[in-house]
């Protein structure tokens, strides 16, 4: 089998892993070497599904001793198998890297013979790259559940980032669909990596040139929609992972049916892309906007609102927080306004040092007034043209695509109950405004 066939099979087998970032570490090539890394990460291309391609993402081998039901590489699946030799893969990586196709390598693998044997093969690829080619580019390596910790330690000294995929968000789902794995076999390596990162950071303070262990941190991935786990459970788990294991990223992957199995959604099930999207939005709110998981979902609201993004949904349910005076509100409060993002909030804080902001100025700073208008005031005043009709509010707070889905689910028409509130355009008094908007949306959705 030539390297073309191997690349095809082993890319195909790796593509359902969504992590592809090269972020989290700044490096430049060592003397006589090749390769650098930028903390912000660099996308080298985007595939036709719109996902960033930053790393050569392949499996070492798709031979697997395990039989996870949701996975195309499972032992019982009849599919062509291939394995790279460590040298083949190292050469391919360097040649892609020299041509600026990639930022580095993302190496995962099926379980060949045993987790330890697989890990040794992976270590050999990284060793050739780091030692023989003096490669300083980005390497993300997967820790296979069940691997001996000394091998993980070795792999971690060569990689920039490591990940252990949780895949299934609960113990029950795991037992049912990945019988060879256990909660323990996943969280043990995750905890081990976390401890080593922590020890290493104190080493680095003590000895400036102490070699770095997984300097870009660790991440994980969960499959969404293969099991009955709710958004609430998933988001809580995510928050816990950031806190307990100091993960850099949690990725979500909408389940793509690859097999007919009575325990799984049927093969013609569409991947729950919107749900995945909402989870990413919420994840963003946890990491950069100072939200807690419990503010976004709770026991009684276990799923995200399909029509409204989580931040907007929070705002509509907390109208007592608004309207907010953008010339005064602290940064952390500005972040809570729909239509104001991290960048525009920072710019607001800078710009208001020299000038009192008006709506025109906010627009220049990149605030999406279409959304923000319902939640803010400038100099004590709401925006002049502010119209609170059902149509206007919906149009402002939903994307066009979502709006059309909304209209499909709640058709317009004289008999439509949902509409009764809005047959007349409502011009509400400013002090009633906020409540009005809240009602007008939350009552129906």
């Amino acid at each position, binding site marked *: 089998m030539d390297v073309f066939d191997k690349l*095809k099979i082993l*890319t195909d087998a790796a593509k359902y892993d969504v992590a592809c970032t090269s972020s989290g570490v700044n490096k430049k090539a060592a003397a006589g070497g090749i390769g650098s890394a930028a903390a912000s990460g660099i996308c080298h291309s985007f595939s036709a599904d*719109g996902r960033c391609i930053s790393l050569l993402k392949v499996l070492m081998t798709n031979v697997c001793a395990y039989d996870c039901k949701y996975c195309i590489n499972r032992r019982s699946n009849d599919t062509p198998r291939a394995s790279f030799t460590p040298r083949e893969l190292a050469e391919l990586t360097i040649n892609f890297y*020299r041509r600026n196709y990639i930022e580095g390598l993302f190496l995962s693998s099926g379980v060949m013979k045993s987790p330890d044997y697989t890990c040794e093969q992976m270590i050999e690829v990284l060793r050739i790259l780091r030692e023989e080619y003096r490669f300083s580019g980005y390497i993300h390596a997967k820790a296979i559940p069940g691997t001996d910790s000394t091998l993980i330690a070795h792999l971690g000294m060569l990689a920039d980032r490591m990940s252990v995929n949780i895949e299934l968000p609960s113990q029950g789902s795991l037992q049912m669909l990945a019988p060879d794995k256990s909660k323990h076999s996943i969280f043990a390596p995750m905890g081990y990596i976390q401890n080593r990162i922590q020890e290493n950071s104190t080493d680095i303070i003590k000895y400036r040139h102490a070699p770095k262990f997984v300097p870009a941190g660790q991440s994980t991935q969960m499959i969404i929609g293969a099991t009955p786990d709710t958004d609430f459970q998933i988001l809580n788990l995510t928050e816990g992972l950031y806190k307990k294991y100091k993960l850099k990223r949690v990725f979500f992957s909408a389940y793509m049916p690859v097999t007919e199995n009575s325990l799984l959604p049927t093969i013609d099930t569409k991947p729950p892309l919107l749900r995945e999207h909402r989870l990413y939005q919420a994840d963003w709110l946890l990491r950069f906007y100072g939200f807690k998981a419990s503010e976004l979902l709770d026991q009684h609201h276990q799923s995200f609102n399909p029509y409204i993004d989580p931040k907007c949904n929070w705002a509509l349910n907390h109208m007592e927080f608004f309207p907010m005076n953008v010339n005064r509100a602290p940064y952390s409060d500005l972040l809570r306004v729909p239509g104001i993002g991290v960048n525009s909030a920072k710019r607001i804080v800078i710009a208001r040092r020299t000038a009192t902001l008006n709506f025109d100025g906010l627009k*220049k700073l990149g605030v999406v007034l279409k959304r923000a208008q319902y939640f803010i005031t400038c100099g004590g005043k709401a925006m002049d043209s502010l119209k609170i009709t059902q149509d206007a509010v919906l149009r402002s707070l939903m994307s066009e695509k979502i709006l059309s889905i909304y209209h499909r689910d709640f058709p317009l028409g004289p008999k439509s109950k949902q509409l009764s509130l809005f047959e007349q355009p409502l011009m509400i008094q400013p002090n009633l405004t906020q409540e009005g908007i809240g009602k007008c949306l939350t009552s129906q959705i």
Partner: protein
Amino acid sequence: MLNQSNLIYRYDGSFDGLLCCVFESYDKKEIPMDILLTDTPQTMLFHTKEIMTDSLKSNRVLSSIPRKMGIDALDFVRHAFLTCLTQKELYILLFLRMGYRYGPSVMNMLTDNVVNILFKAVKHLEKESHLLKGFLRFSIFNNILVAEIEPKNYVLPMMTQHFCERYPEERFLIYDKTHSMALVYQPYQPTVIPIDDLELPEPNEEEQSYQELWRLFYDTIEVQGRHNPECRMSQMPKRYWKYMTEFGCPQKKPLLKLENSSANRTGEYY
């Protein structure tokens, strides 16, 4: 201070030259309505002044900028000069005049029109150079890495450090077709030189196989069930595709000849 509605400065296109325009504007207490390159055609309607580049004057302006408005403002103006903003020279002059008046806080005046327009232009430059750090593709000829780009902004100075740190032991060339300039590097010496055209030889077999392998990887990595060309387009606008290996090949020239001679059309390159 007079706003001269019919006064135009012309300069040699260098950053120093522009600083001399700033000097002139202060010296003569006048604000031109535009600043153009020396070789743009003259019109009779306007009063035109040729501003000679004089390093004594430009150095005076240059050293005053960090003193009066901070080092960030100087970096900002240098970047602004690389952008493709129309009338960038005039905006830079107006910005510096504000800087002399308000000091470092000019960098906070984000809602002011002049500052805002320049900030957006610099953002555009930064975004484009960031994207090109990823989208740029090298082909290897005689062990020299060669890339071609067609950026809107003059991004080469923004990418020099990045590629030098990435490939310290390589020899490479990045040709900016829009601005007819090239970044040429050999260990450990980067230079930027003017260059008119770039004729590339046929890639050898090894080079062709790696290009094929990359196309194979690119096509395979897509999850078809998530096909989303609009999303791809918004992340990676089509104007970048032209020089990207995954969408055909950089050695279009020989292939185009093939097509012209209407010999066997393989269609492979689309």
